[in-house]
């Protein structure tokens, strides 16, 4: 088992190392083959591991200690691989999506000059993510956390010659720093309280500390709440929750496979994963859970509204991701961690599918991302159209509640909404339930809007000469275009190497919910999780959720139906209406279109403020005071003194003799003065 897990986790690192360090030497194709090969190996091993954990002999928790990391006094940290149901699920999600994205990138990045670098980054990301999900203590969790952050930064800025990509990568990194600050403080708090950062040692200790109070910023805090909230701030940054969400839409500057892998399926879900992993902590931190619920629900609503008005195909999906992450968080917040994990699992498939499908569209449209310039693509890109439709049905969660039969999103999202209903005894729970249902409608609206604007209606691309002229030049430069057709300006279907991952993912999008809901959230959940997720003694949310009456179960479906019909009305039947709404605007449209003015607000406050402070310290503090007195000042004084000292060296013997006598007199005086004291 050890060897298998080590290969599973470190295979991608090996691939990344080879492709990253020797990519130029060994060439593009070997780099791609090596990285993709290792990923598929990992993927295969992950599924094997998952099956062994779920049905086989590897149930329960296993911790494989690889190497000691830090041993200082009673602070111990190891490099290890933790295997339980939770990490097994994550292994499957991460390696499956990653492997398919690797494969997909063969086609998508076919024209890119630095393929080895891209594949090395992808594999590096995968390794970091695997370290994160298999962490057995906070140190390694943090290592993985930062590792994926680094890979994300590198990949968002992969096209570093684009200023917007650079800005976006920096933004992602900086916003994540804010979250990581909270995360680090949370880890320190945990260590301060429990003197251990190992999960296995930590979790049994938590119950005893419930109710302990701490003074922090001269306020009394429940100690566990404080720790949980600080950790959750880290999760907010990584998972782009309300207030710290601004980086995610901008991160779409990266190549689309990156968006699919990192900013939809895996990295952004790390926050959710962490909250679920720390369920023993959050179970005893009611205030923190309330915060999680409120933030999650707010994000779900906020992102869904913003998604309504965006025109960039990737940004729509990005806000959709944001919104779905909100669902996961409020599920965890009300105590249905299983539901959160389940939604994470299904979401990975259909969201990766949507992103890769969008990538296929972008590829076919010659790197055009504006949906207003698309339309009527369904004939030209039938397979992409089919898989996008599947993905949309999956995310909107269409299914038949009575029969428990539907697409992936149906199972997971409805479970979450039912769980929120079950928790609606508390205000936060009630808020979450209302938002969940309402956002389901919005989700349906913007998802269908995307499909209709892209694939239906009239093809706006036919009139746009400028874009494909430029693109034709581009093709001439490289001597080969997309595919083998003669007319580069006509949108075309993507090559098979891109379509195969799409088809595989659509199987997941259709069947993942049906196949696994019994295990994740159904009757078999206790047996499935085997204690990897902890529910407090009074937490029977999941049980209550199943007992929800039919009208509650129908509520999200109704909302979805309304949203769908609205989308059909606006985008399919009255095609001109969209433009009219956009033109007439009105405050609500403006507000939504501008993403609630978050970027402007942050710019005005944090960015400007920080810039002002930075300028103050840089120009005033560093240049004038520190450099002036420090390096430059010392250098100037040194040069001046050197000049003065040099002048004494006149060459006259009597001057020298005089200096010597001065020295004698000076030393004598000093000696007498010193001794007299």
């Amino acid at each position, binding site marked *: 088992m050890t060897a298998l897990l080590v290969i599973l986790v470190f295979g991608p690192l090996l691939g990344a190392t080879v492709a990253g360090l020797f990519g130029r030497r060994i060439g593009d194709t070997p780099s791609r083959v090596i990285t993709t090969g290792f990923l598929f190996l990992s993927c295969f091993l992950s599924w094997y591991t998952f099956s062994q954990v779920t049905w086989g002999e590897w149930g329960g928790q296993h911790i494989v200690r690889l190497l000691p990391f830090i041993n200082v006094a009673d602070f111990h940290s190891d490099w290890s691989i933790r295997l339980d149901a939770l990490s097994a699920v994550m292994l499957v999600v991460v390696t499956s999506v990653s492997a398919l994205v690797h494969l997909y990138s063969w086609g998508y990045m076919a024209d890119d000059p630095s393929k080895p670098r891209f594949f090395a980054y992808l594999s590096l990301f995968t390794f970091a993510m695997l370290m994160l999900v298999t962490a057995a203590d906070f140190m390694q969790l943090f290592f993985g956390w930062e590792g994926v952050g680094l890979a994300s930064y590198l990949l968002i800025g992969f096209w570093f010659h684009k200023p917007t990509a650079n800005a976006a990568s920096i933004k992602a990194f900086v916003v994540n720093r804010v979250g990581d600050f909270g995360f680090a403080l949370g880890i320190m708090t945990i260590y301060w309280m429990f003197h251990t950062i190992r999960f296995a040692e930590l979790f049994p200790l938590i119950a005893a500390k419930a109710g302990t109070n701490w003074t922090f910023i001269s306020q009394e805090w429940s100690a566990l709440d404080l720790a949980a909230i600080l950790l959750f701030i880290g999760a907010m940054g990584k998972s782009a929750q309300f207030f710290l969400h601004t980086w995610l839409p901008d991160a779409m500057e990266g190549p689309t496979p990156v968006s699919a892998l990192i900013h939809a399926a895996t990295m952004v879900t790390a926050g959710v994963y962490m909250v679920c992993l720390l369920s023993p902590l959050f179970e005893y931190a009611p205030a923190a859970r309330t915060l999680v619920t409120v933030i999650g629900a707010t994000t779900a609503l906020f992102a869904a509204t913003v998604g309504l008005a965006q025109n960039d195909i990737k940004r729509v999906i990005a806000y959709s991701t944001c919104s779905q992450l909100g669902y996961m968080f409020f599920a965890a917040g009300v105590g249905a961690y299983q539901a959160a994990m389940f939604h994470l699992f299904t979401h990975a498939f259909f969201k990766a599918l949507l992103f890769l499908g969008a990538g296929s569209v972008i590829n076919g449209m010659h790197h055009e991302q504006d949906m207003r310039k698309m339309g009527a693509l369904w004939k030209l890109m039938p397979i992409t159209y089919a898989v996008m439709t599947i993905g949309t049905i999956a995310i909107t969660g269409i299914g038949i509640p009575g029969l428990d039969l539907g697409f992936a999103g149906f199972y997971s999202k409805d479970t979450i909404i039912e769980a929120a209903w079950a928790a609606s005894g508390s205000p936060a729970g009630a808020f979450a339930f209302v938002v969940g249902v309402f956002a389901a409608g919005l989700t349906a609206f913007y998802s269908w809007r995307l499909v209709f604007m892209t694939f239906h209606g009239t093809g706006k691309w036919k009139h746009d000469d400028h874009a494909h002229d430029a693109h034709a030049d581009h093709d001439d430069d490289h001597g080969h275009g997309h595919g083998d057709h003669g007319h580069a300006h006509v949108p075309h279907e993507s090559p098979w190497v891109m379509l195969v991952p799409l088809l595989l993912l659509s199987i997941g999008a259709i069947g993942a919910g049906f196949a696994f809901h019994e295990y994740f959230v159904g009757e078999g959940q206790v047996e499935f999780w085997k204690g990897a997720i902890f529910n407090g003694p009074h937490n029977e949310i999941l049980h209550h959720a199943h007992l929800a009456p039919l009208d509650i179960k129908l509520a999200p479906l109704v909302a979805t139906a309304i949203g769908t019909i609205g989308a059909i009305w606006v985008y399919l039947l009255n095609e001109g209406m969209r433009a009219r709404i956009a033109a007439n605007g009105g405050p609500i449209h403006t507000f939504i279109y501008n993403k609630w003015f978050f970027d402007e607000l942050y710019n005005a406050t944090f960015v400007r403020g920080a810039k002002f402070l930075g300028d103050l310290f840089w120009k005033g503090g560093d240049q004038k005071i520190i450099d002036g007195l420090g390096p430059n000042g010392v250098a100037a004084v040194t040069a001046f003194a050197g000049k003065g000292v040099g002048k004494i060296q006149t060459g006259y013997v*009597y001057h020298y003799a*005089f200096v010597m*006598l*001065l020295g*004698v*007199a000076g030393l*004598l*005086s000093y000696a*007498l003065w010193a001794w007299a004291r």
Partner: protein
Amino acid sequence: MNLQAIAFYVLSVITVVSALGVVSARNPVHSVLYLILSFFTAAGLFVLLGAEFLAMLLIVVYVGAVAVLFLFVVMMLDVDFGSLREGFVRYLPIGGVVAAVLVVEMVLVATAVGEQGAAKGSGAPDILLDAPNTEQIGRVLYTDYIYFFQAAGMVLLVAMIGAIVLTLRHRPGVKRQSVMDQVARTPAKGMRIVQVKTGEGISE
């Protein structure tokens, strides 16, 4: 106050004053003469201490040889001492301050030590009166101090080598008298008989 004390104060005052004269006299010849005077009085102080041999050495070596050599050098070398002394007034104030500081400090220490009587019990070794001064020096010079004596010899050797290295020149083409050559000279070596033909002369 006995005669010895009077002699001591007279001699020491003259020593100090003449030492001042050495450095302050305008005429270098006068400086050397002051130096000789100060040697003389210092020799007198040695006599007062009962070190007649040292006193004689001082006069014979320092006055008789060293100082007179100085005098010759000063008189023979045509050095413009006026120009050398140009900076004297300019440096006098600061030089004076340094000197004054040194003097004050020495006086301070001397009085402090005098009050505490620090040197008690470890004065100079007693002079044995069983032998004359010269013999006593001779006794330790070749026994206890043989090392220093020999080492001092090496110092003198170096001085000699140095003087030779720095001044001895073997100039080519300098005509020197060689007695050996002169004595060994024979008619055969010294003469050549040449038959001179008429009207041709000798051309060599």
